[in-house]
């Protein structure tokens, strides 16, 4: 008998008789203002939010925010003129020097300021972690109240990889002192379009 078959046989012999799945495992979150809730939580987790009317305003804002910065890459065609690097490289190691990545997020969650991105947004999976600074552009119309709503909208296996990103990378492993910028991006700016 293989290890697999033996393990499964032991499990079958020892598991209790089948119990029911809960009838309720999704809940409704009633936030008066989804954008406001998202921005509050994003600020709480160390990110920054800015509400902008259109892509031109995003471009202008980013030009001002990251003045003098090089090694910038984006997947957003309208912002191509800001970039001097490519994200769709064959080898992810080529992104080691990336200073700023500007990507889009198709779905955001108000309760925890998480933004879903998958390989539709990421030419390489490592982009949101390897970049020094990260900008994600979302739309107010795609903010859902909570994680139950999020899972109703996304298909987790639509691509081979997807992740919820909530704020910049962080650690509190040294005496519980919060340090922003652990191994992933040191900052997260979320530009919110209508």
């Amino acid at each position: 008998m293989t290890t697999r078959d033996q393990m499964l046989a032991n499990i079958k012999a020892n598991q209790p008789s089948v119990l029911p799945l809960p009838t309720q495992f999704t809940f409704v979150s009633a936030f008066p203002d989804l954008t406001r809730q998202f921005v509050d939580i994003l600020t709480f987790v160390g990110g920054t939010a800015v509400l902008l009317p259109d892509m031109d305003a995003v471009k202008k804002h980013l030009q001002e925010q990251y003045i003098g910065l090089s090694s910038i890459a984006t997947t957003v065609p309208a912002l191509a003129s800001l970039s001097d690097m490519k994200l769709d490289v064959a080898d992810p190691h080529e992104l080691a020097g990336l200073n700023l990545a500007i990507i889009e997020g198709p779905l955001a969650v108000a309760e925890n300021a998480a933004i879903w991105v998958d390989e539709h947004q990421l030419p390489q999976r490592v982009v949101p972690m390897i970049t020094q600074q990260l900008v994600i552009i979302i739309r107010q119309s795609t903010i859902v109240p909570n994680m139950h709503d999020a899972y109703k909208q996304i298909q987790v296996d639509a691509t081979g990889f997807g992740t919820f990103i909530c704020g910049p990378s962080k650690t509190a492993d040294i005496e519980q002192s919060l340090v922003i910028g652990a191994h992933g991006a040191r900052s997260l700016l979320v530009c919110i379009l209508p």
Partner: protein
Amino acid sequence: MNQLSLDHAGAAIEFNKNEPRVDWHDETLWFVRTKRDRAAAQVPEWEQLREAASQIKNYSLSNMHDLLEQFEQNAIKNGITVHWAADADEHNKIVHGIIQKAGADRMVKSKSMLTEECHLNDYLTRHGIEVIDSDLGERIVQLRGEPPSHIVLPAIHLTKADVGDTFHKHLGTDAGATDPQYLTEAARQHLRDTFLTRKVALTGVNFAIAETGGFVVCTNEGNADMGVHLADVHIAAMGFEKVIPRAEHLGVFLRLLARSATGQPITTFSSHFHRPRPGQEMHIVIVDNGRSRQLGRPDFRNSLKCIRCAACLNTCPVYRRSGGFSYHSAVAGPIGSILAPNLDMKLNADLPFASTLCGSCSNVCPVKIDIHDQLYKWRQVLMQEGYGPGSKTAAMKTMATVLESPRLYRMAGKIGRGVLRFAPVTVENKFNPWYTQREMPEPPAESFRDWYINNKKS
């Protein structure tokens, strides 16, 4: 002193010798617990979420065989290689085999309590493979040659001065530097080089999804992602109990996990892996290592519902004042104390006694494990199986003899009162464990029985 060679009580005595440090440890963990409370209070349906999580896990345990088969089939369809390991040794051999096949002699690893349980690092090091732990806390304790003392906060037993000394010695930071920002930056630079140069990366698994054959890994630092997205080979190690039925159930667990752990609304990265990226290999190692035995113990199987948030550690008055190392087990605290006796009853017989049975652990558990009830039940099992501490067994037997006989009981009471009054030194000494942290009580002049008889007369 090596705390790992002592039993819990002995190691706790060592830990308590440095009183300001114990106070600091206690307060720091309580601070994390209060953050958890604030986060939970912001979710009106918190208790219903806990109930839903508990029931999904109950269902999963009761349907484990089929869920694992379904998960395996779908993972294979996704292009993931699935391995099965009956015990720690088989797990270590499988991981070693994958590394060898990749032609590598170095690996980067993000947090996985399972690999701690299996002592993977020791095994690989003995076989000439260098392993670097990439979680900051784990890297700190690895450099010091220590195991993690907490499942979520591995270096919680250390001060920033300790970390500064360690980094000065190993990473060349300035002597005496203690600024967490500076120290974290040093680790970031050191580990960035590691991420960029390793061909094999190992991660743990927070949740495995039967319906889709994928798995979720949660980190705040982004270290799991940095490791695997830059590696040619991704190995994910999981205890079989990590499997849940469907992706939509993740909504429940991701709402509970980080809030229970650190009071964050969700971890910075909650990464869903379903297929290797082009040219990459992805492996999953599904491990038993005593879990199927625990599944067969009706009183203790619920311990397998654990999602490793560590809320029970942070709230536990004993853990906070005895430290993670006193549990001499990969998973410390209340949950570790009900998991460890299943792994080795003799070696871990002291752990279910390392509790006041106050029940706070069960009250904060996001999947509603009856932790304090199980601690109590393990005590019964361990005493019956003959693994109880010898002194306790002898004391209990003497007490039973005395309590069985009214005459002996009255005599013992009289002697006790007399001793406390006229010769307190016989109990107020270091041989009496009750006296080490307590004042002995004022002895009453007479017993209740004597008082009753005297007052009835008048």
